[in-house]
């Protein structure tokens, strides 16, 4: 509250000046949003954007260096890396967004229920999440895909489930402190139902940690998918996934054809970076206290 505090309340600005305000206030967030929307656009319009067919092989172009046909080189089977990366955006973003949304959504719901209902319910759910957390994320995802079989849908589920306990625990502890807040007591004093209190007063205030967690996990889901695909349990061949493009070539071609490692790695880093920037800005932008 260092600047002049407007006591008149914010006058609703026009959409344009609102946008301009956001750009000036959160330049990094806007950068993150641009990065993310580029990838989303690439995923949607992959068929039109990719210069070459991502599946067609060409023995003569095997391990071709980046040139004017293969902008980012070609892999061992002579498939265009650039086109595969564009098409890979579909799979990778579907896995990352799908798993993060499902994991955070279910986790938040479980955490809210635990913090709110408490008692035996909370005790049992907490022990279950502890057991889940004791297993490494990858191991659990492995077991789940192994039992469900490899497919895009199962990959998303396998990556989403291990995210649930982390989110649930963070939200639960947040809820436990929020429900003791005097404004929650004030709502009780007016006779508001517990459910409405949870939805109106508790849930919106768990948003900040939830967004931070979700964006942080977005990156790790891409990497988990990479590991799963590398082990043959992720998205099956020949569909291009960034993770598998990186992990398969990292082992064999890092010396002989580094472009097979560099470009997928760059793309993954960029998305993780973009999602973190966007998440931080989103957290601030959704908090009225940050708006002065």
């Amino acid at each position, binding site marked *: *509250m260092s600047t002049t*505090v*407007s*006591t*008149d*309340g*914010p006058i609703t600005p026009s959409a344009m000046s609102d946008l301009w305000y956001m750009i000036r206030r959160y330049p990094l967030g806007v950068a993150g949003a641009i990065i993310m929307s580029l990838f989303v656009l690439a995923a949607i319009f992959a068929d039109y954007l990719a210069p070459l067919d991502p599946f067609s092989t060409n023995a003569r172009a095997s391990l071709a260096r980046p040139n004017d046909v293969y902008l980012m080189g070609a892999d061992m089977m002579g498939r265009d890396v650039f086109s595969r990366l564009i098409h890979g955006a579909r799979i990778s973003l579907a896995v990352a967004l799908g798993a993060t949304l499902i994991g955070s959504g279910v986790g938040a719901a479980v955490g809210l229920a635990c913090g709110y209902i408490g008692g035996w319910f909370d005790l049992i759910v907490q022990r279950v999440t502890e057991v889940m957390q004791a297993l490494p994320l990858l191991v659990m995802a492995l077991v789940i895909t192994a039992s469900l079989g490899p497919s895009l849908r199962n990959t998303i589920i396998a990556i989403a489930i291990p995210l649930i306990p982390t989110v649930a625990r963070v939200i639960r502890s947040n809820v436990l402190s929020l429900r003791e*807040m*005097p*404004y929650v*007591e*004030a*709502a*009780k*004093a*007016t*006779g*508001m139902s517990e459910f*409405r209190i949870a939805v*109106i*007063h508790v849930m*919106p*205030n768990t948003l900040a940690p939830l967004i931070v967690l979700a964006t942080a996990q977005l990156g790790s889901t891409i990497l988990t998918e990479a590991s799963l695909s590398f082990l043959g349990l992720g998205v099956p061949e020949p569909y291009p996934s960034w993770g598998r493009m990186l992990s398969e070539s990292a082992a064999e071609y890092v010396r002989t054809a580094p472009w097979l490692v560099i470009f997928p790695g760059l793309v993954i880093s960029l998305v993780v970076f973009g999602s973190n920037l966007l998440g931080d800005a989103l957290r601030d932008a959704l*908090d*009225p*206290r940050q*708006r002065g």
Partner: protein
Amino acid sequence: MAQTPLIDVTDLRKYFPIRKGLLRRTVGNVHAVDGVTFSINAGETLGLVGESGCGKSTVGRVVLRLIEPTSGDIKVTGRSIVNLGRDEMRPLRRQMQIVFQDPFSSLNPRMRAGDIVGEPLKVHGVGDPKDREARVAALFARVGLRAAQMRSFPHQFSGGQRQRVSIARALALDPGFIVADEPVSALDVSIQAQVINLLMDLQREMNLSYLFISHNLAVVEHISHRVAVMYLGRIVEYADKKTLFASPQHPYTEALLAAVPLPDPTLKRTKHRVDGDVPSPIKPPPGCHFHPRCRYAEARCKVEAPVLKTIAPGHEVACHLR
């Protein structure tokens, strides 16, 4: 007293169980409120004073049934409310509201002030949205805020203004009784006076009753009609304001009053210092709770708990020696 008091509390107790171990067995109780009896008439303010941890805030919350009492009875206009269910409690909640101490955490940071004040109206389905907005605007005006501030978020207000928002929220349903739990303790002294005066004006206009909880004796003396002094979960002295401040009878009250800072450095004061700390409410001392710190304590005080007895009309003291 011929009239039925608005709030009538009898032998109220609240023990918080202390649970330990895997089976969460109860190993003891915190005796937060240990047999408290008082009544408040319409348009009257009862000041409830005591050190921190003596259970005064718990009393306020139990009276509103934000915390369930362990035992005892609470009557609102003659009707017992301790056994009412949620739905039966709802209409009564319109009559009883609360204002909290901390102006920062008592307002949801994500809601606009106008929505905060209008929320009780919404919960009870009062009027349509337009009607509610007009009512909220009127409430804002009544507590000395501008209608334009309805669109502001809590962080855009100062502490005193936030407390006004809290008061407006408490007034929204036109209650007869408000628990004011240290409503000015977190404010600057100059702002304290404004808020106190606002509360007193509102009382005159709307015939409000307050349970005014505070540790600040000067504030309590200013606003209250009657005062109850609490020590470790029990009321030790209960009298009208003038009597209590002019002739305190309980040794604890005496010591409390002696500890009030006087705005005159030349005045010499008789020191009745109370040594030591408040004993643990988990294992309160036997007999009179105050005896370990009382300079008049006798053998009897260590064994037998004194009950409140009337020593003059409207003046009750719980002490063996009076």
